[in-house]
C-alpha cells in the first residue's frame, strides 16, 4: 500500500538577494507519524538543499525549531505533520534565511 503523501508550502526568503518573500510548494512527502521537522528534513534531503532551517535537539528541549505551521506557533520537532501545511518562520524575530530567525534578542 502506498503511504499517503503531504504537500507543504514553505516560506522562502533570503534578505541578501530577495526583495519579497515567496512560498514554495513541495509535494509527495510521506507524513504519517512524522513531525514537521522530519518533513522539512525530507524536503531538504530529497528536493532542495538550499532550504534553511534549524534542526538541533529534535526532542523539544532547545526551542531552535520554533516556527509557525498553519498560523499556529509550535516547535516543529514536537508537532505531527498534517496533509496540508503552510510552514513559516517565527513571526516575532528577524529572518536570517528561510525558516531561520535571529534568536539573539532572547539571549540578551
Amino acid at each position: 500500500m502506498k503511504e499517503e503523501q503531504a504537500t507543504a508550502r514553505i516560506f522562502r526568503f533570503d534578505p541578501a538577494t530577495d526583495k519579497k518573500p515567496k512560498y514554495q510548494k513541495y509535494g509527495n512527502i510521506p507524513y504519517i507519524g512524522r513531525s514537521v521537522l522530519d518533513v522539512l528534513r525530507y524536503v531538504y534531503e530529497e528536493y532542495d538543499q538550499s532550504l534553511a532551517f534549524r534542526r538541533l535537539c529534535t526532542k523539544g528541549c532547545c526551542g531552535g525549531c520554533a516556527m509557525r505551521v498553519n498560523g499556529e506557533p509550535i516547535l516543529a520537532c514536537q508537532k505531527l505533520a498534517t496533509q496540508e501545511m503552510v510552514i513559516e518562520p517565527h513571526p516575532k524575530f528577524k529572518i536570517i534565511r528561510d525558516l531561520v530567525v535571529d534568536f539573539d534578542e532572547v539571549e540578551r
Partner: protein
Amino acid sequence: LIAGKEAGERARGMKKVQVDEKQVKELRARTFEPLRREGGVKFIEVKREMEEILNKHFLLTGKTKASLEKGIDEIVGIRKEALPRLYSSVKNLRFNQEFLECIEAFNRVDTIEMLFRAALMREESRGLHFRKDYPDPNPMWLRNVLIQKVGSEMKLWAEPVEFTYFQPEEVRK
C-alpha cells in the same frame, strides 16, 4: 576560587603551543573546497553510502573478520573517491546547511573507519560488541583500544584498563 587560582598558576607555567601554519592552510583549503567546486558528489549521496556500509558490515550480531575488513575497504574507498569530489550545490554563506554537512563528512568517515578498525582489533565479544567469530568474552581483552593518527594512517594499540574502585572479580560475585 581555589580552582581558578590553581588554573591560573598552572597556565602561567605552560609553554605556548605553536600553530602549524601549513596544517591550518591545508585544513582551510579542504574545508572551503566544497564551496568552490561546481560539480561532483553531494553530501546526501555520501551519507547514504556510509549508512549502507554500516548497515551491511557493522551488524549488531553479524560482525566477522571478513565483514569488518570489507567495511574498512569500502569506507577507505569513500575517503579516496567521494571526499575529494564533495561539493555544496548551495553557495550562499548564510546558514548553509549543505556546506556544514560537507565539513562533517570528513569527520564522519574518520569516525566510521575508527569504529571498524577497533572492532576488528578486539577479538572477543563484550557487551554490545559481538563478534560472530569470537562469541565469548576474553579476559585478555580487559583493555581499552586507543587510536592515534600517524601521518595519514591510523595507529591502534590496546592498553590495560586501570580499575580504580572495583575489580572485575568483585563485580562478578
